[in-house]
């Protein structure tokens, strides 16, 4: 059996152990969704009382945005930063170096393995709540194929970003500084909380040059049918360029890091 497939199965098995953890994170996720939905509802009500029309999106679309943004967060999440900084700081990275399989690929397949479990026990419950409790329509079937491509792109972009931040441990011990920065820049610039269509034009011009919107905004705008053909084309091209750049950076940092690495004998 292929060794990476085996790694993936291991990850599936180990996630089934943490059932309590899954239950808690789903609960926290539902609270987050509820808070955001209440917020948008209040904002739309306020605009209505001022006779203002919000042309960018309807309230129901914003509710969907909130739910699906939360689900995309689940799908792109990975443990790279923790895993790498822990391996590097403790010296356990040495086992990754002497194995006949690549570190990048083993992290990748571990992450993918954890997704299989997550789809069953975290994504489906949230979808059930959104459809039956909130009465939100399911996404348009025609949007799904392009959405899947965008999702793979989002996953890859974020995976590479976290891989790079994790490897910064070769030089910088307090990895959580960079992790915090990445998290908060992502929260704002990726469209996780606020879709880019509400951003002022100057700010959007900045974001067009950054890779962050590939992670949330790109798949979400496709799923909600907000992105037209031209925009989809631009996002795809942008995704390919950024993934190539980030991958090149990751390879370079990995090689520089290995040269920097000194492990105490045991």
């Amino acid at each position, binding site marked *: 059996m292929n060794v990476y497939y085996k790694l993936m199965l291991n990850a599936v098995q180990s996630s089934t152990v943490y059932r309590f953890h899954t239950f808690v994170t789903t609960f926290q996720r539902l609270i987050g969704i509820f*808070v955001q939905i209440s917020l948008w509802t209040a904002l739309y009500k306020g605009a209505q009382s001022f006779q203002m029309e919000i042309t960018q999106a309807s309230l129901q679309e914003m509710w969907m945005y909130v739910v699906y943004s939360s689900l995309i967060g689940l799908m792109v999440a990975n443990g790279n930063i923790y895993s790498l900084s822990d391996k590097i700081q403790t010296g356990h990275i040495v086992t990754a170096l002497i194995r006949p399989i690549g570190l990048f690929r083993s992290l990748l397949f571990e992450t993918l393995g954890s997704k299989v479990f997550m789809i069953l026990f975290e994504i489906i419950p949230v979808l059930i709540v959104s459809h039956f409790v909130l009465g939100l329509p399911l996404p348009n079937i025609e949007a799904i194929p392009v959405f899947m491509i965008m999702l793979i792109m989002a996953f890859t972009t974020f995976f590479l970003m976290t891989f790079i931040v994790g490897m910064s441990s070769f030089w910088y011990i307090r990895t959580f500084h960079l992790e915090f920065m990445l998290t908060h820049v992502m929260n704002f610039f990726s469209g996780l909380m606020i879709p880019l269509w*509400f951003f002022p034009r100057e700010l959007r011009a900045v974001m067009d040059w950054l890779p962050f919107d590939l992670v949330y905004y790109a798949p979400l705008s496709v799923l909600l049918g907000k992105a037209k053909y031209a925009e989809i084309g631009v996002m795809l091209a942008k995704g390919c360029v950024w993934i190539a750049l980030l991958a090149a950076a990751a390879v370079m940092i990995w090689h520089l890091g290995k040269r920097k690495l000194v492990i105490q004998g045991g």
Partner: protein
Amino acid sequence: MPHPFRLYGRFLRTYMKTQLEYRFSFFGDIFVNMMTFVTLYLSFWVLFNTFPTMNGWNYWEVVFLYNLNLLTYATSSLFFWGPMKQLEHLVRSGEFDQFLVRPLDPLKLLVFRQFQHTFIGHIIVAGTVMVLCTIQLEIHWTTGNIAFLLLCVLGGTLIQAGIIITAASSAFWVVRSGTVVDISIYAIRNFINYPISIYGRSIQLLLTFVIPYAFVNYYPAAAFFGKDHAGSSELSHLYSYSSLAVGAALFAAAVWIFRRGVMRYDSAGS
């Protein structure tokens, strides 16, 4: 036996000495924590760029509301976040034993031992931005409203401390107490990032009577800006002036719960 505050001074000096040994990291910790809030204010700004109001609250009022939460959370966390996060591990591993054989109350020793300098960044940001808010909102300062605000900050800090101590004390009863802490101070506290009038009645009641986060920022700020309350009854006006009382009661209850927990503690054995 030295006075507890003098003793804490000693602990604090030692802590600072160890941290300042790595000066770059120390200031890095504080700086990074300050940066993270920049994106948060930007998000509020973007929202108010499109939408005129958040249930009758404008941009600066919402930012003020948010910072009242942040300031009290950070002040309480300087002292309590570190120790309370550790408690699950200490109890489960049996390391809590060492707190029972020292000539100081276990709760005091636990708190004294671990200061958390990272929250200094939050306090600097929250304090500065709150001053900025009051300038933007052209608040007319009187002795009355300065005293009111200071007492609300004190009350809010006690509430935040009471909640984290209570949540962490669950370590003496359940195994996964870390999760209880995380839900209380992260997930539930998310509710008060915005005026609680945007939620339904049940959530407002929850935040008033069960986990009284609403007294940290919503009720005081509503009174400070002269807003109508969510459930504008005679009684609810009283809420605005109850932060300190709620905080004191909650803190006392939390200490009592912690002590009950310590009595229940039987070591992991070795």
